[in-house]
């Protein structure tokens, strides 16, 4: 435990201030209790976890809610950025769609924050440097990736919730994300709302079914927008 604590300190002291703000919450106590450092977990022999770098989101339904909260933070932050500084070649009508979608994602984000209360992770700071947000095409490519990811995330997480209330919420939000995904896809490429890259159509038994991704698969993508590494190891699944 002592050495892990040292790792925790080293992680925080060695990284730029901006990285720390991921865990900026009302108080440091809340942050440290809400965020379980993987290295402190009982499963620290698990080779999937990199004890010095990975943060976990908690366990059980709380962990899943933090997972959804992180995902909604990502989507909201993305749309916030697009709406604040839209690409010059994006028509006003499309910007109105993006404003709606931003508002929906902020609502989802705040839903999970409220649901989690003091168990909520802090506010994440995202790095969108890998995206091209100065062109309409770049914005649509990114939006499509994030919305399809959101749909697959909820489709994969539904079975992991214990409390039926949260399974119900996952359903209520998943279909709105799917509506977003369909619109974004259609605007990027007409009639691609449910193309074969997301809805299987290869002669398999799962034809006609949308994608479903595990928390680990989704977190791997989310991590590409973070300056820290979040681990899905503590989550169900």
């Amino acid at each position, binding site marked *: 435990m002592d050495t892990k604590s040292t790792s925790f300190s080293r992680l925080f002291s060695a990284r730029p201030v901006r990285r720390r703000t991921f865990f900026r919450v009302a108080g440091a106590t809340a942050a440290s209790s809400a965020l379980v450092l993987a290295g402190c977990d009982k499963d620290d022999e698990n080779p999937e976890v990199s004890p010095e770098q990975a943060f976990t989101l908690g366990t059980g339904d709380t962990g899943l809610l933090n997972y959804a909260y992180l995902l909604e933070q990502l989507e909201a932050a993305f749309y916030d950025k697009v709406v604040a500084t839209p690409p010059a070649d994006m028509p006003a009508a499309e910007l109105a769609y993006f404003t709606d979608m931003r508002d*929906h994602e902020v609502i989802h984000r705040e839903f999970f924050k409220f649901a989690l209360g003091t168990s909520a992770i802090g506010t994440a700071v995202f790095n969108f440097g890998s995206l091209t947000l100065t062109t309409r095409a770049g914005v649509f490519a990114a939006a499509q990736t994030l919305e399809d990811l959101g749909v697959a995330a909820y*489709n994969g997480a539904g*079975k992991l919730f214990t409390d039926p209330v949260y*399974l*119900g919420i996952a359903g209520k939000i998943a279909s709105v994300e799917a509506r977003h995904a369909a619109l974004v896809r259609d605007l990027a490429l007409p*009639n691609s*709302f449910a193309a074969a890259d997301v809805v299987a159509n290869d002669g398999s038994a799962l034809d006609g079914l*949308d994608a479903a991704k595990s928390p680990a698969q989704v977190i791997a993508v989310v991590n590409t927008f973070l300056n820290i590494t979040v681990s899905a190891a503590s989550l169900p699944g």
Partner: protein
Amino acid sequence: MNILKLLADLAEVDPTLYDRLSSRQAAFAPLSKLGRKAALAALPVALGTAIMPAQARDIRTILDSLNLALVLEYLESEFYARALGLVAGAPSVPASFFPAGTRPAIETIYRHEQQHVRFLERVIQASGGTLPTKPRFDFTGSKNGAQPALFADVFTNFDTFLQVAQTLEDAGVRAYKGQVGFLQTDNSLLEAALRIHSVEARHAAHIRSMRRARGANVKSWVSPTDTSIAVAGKTDAVYAGEGLVNQFVAGLRQVPFDQAPLNTVVAVAKVAEAFDEPIPASTATSLVSIFTY
């Protein structure tokens, strides 16, 4: 809830418990390929009846949900098949029915509905269930002429067709959403239902976008600002309750979106858009009955 410990304790008292649990699950084994983990996930409900003398209640509930889903898929599949002129004996649809560029999307949606039908039929049969009888459909809503039509020009007026399509797709999204809770004891079925549910939502959004492109005041998501297409006393159940702004977290705590500080962070007017609402099986069944006779 420490299911593992509870199970271990119970198994110590009653060594046949594991067997009874697994035999209950065996009904779904062909589709679930149930591993130990899935079986454990099914425990909270299965346990209740495994301890008691075996009852078929859980199985019937799951099959009820699957049957409802299949009837919905029969409805949607037949609807698009007729529009595409693929149903022998049905009134012919003029070649000019589809405006330029609109047919491919309807073909895509039709293909998905067919795939959903096949998936659900396979799942039900693999579970030892009997397929529901495919209803006779009348998409004008006249019950084969027994009453005045609600959508007399559904296959001659493309806008009417799209209105009915939107009605069916939005209803389908809500109906699946209303059933997922009943599938929580079977991880494979639950995930499959969610994966079909989101495809229906993609369809609904596309149909809505098609209508908007033709001048209708409708968003790609269900919004209180949409111009209503509901037929009072008939299809209004498709949208009743979608304007809900009260969402709840565990413990029935309401999220105070319309109060400070949340109302300073979120666009309160868009809360209803941000959540799609479920409908119960009874509502879904009565909506289906509008188009059957």
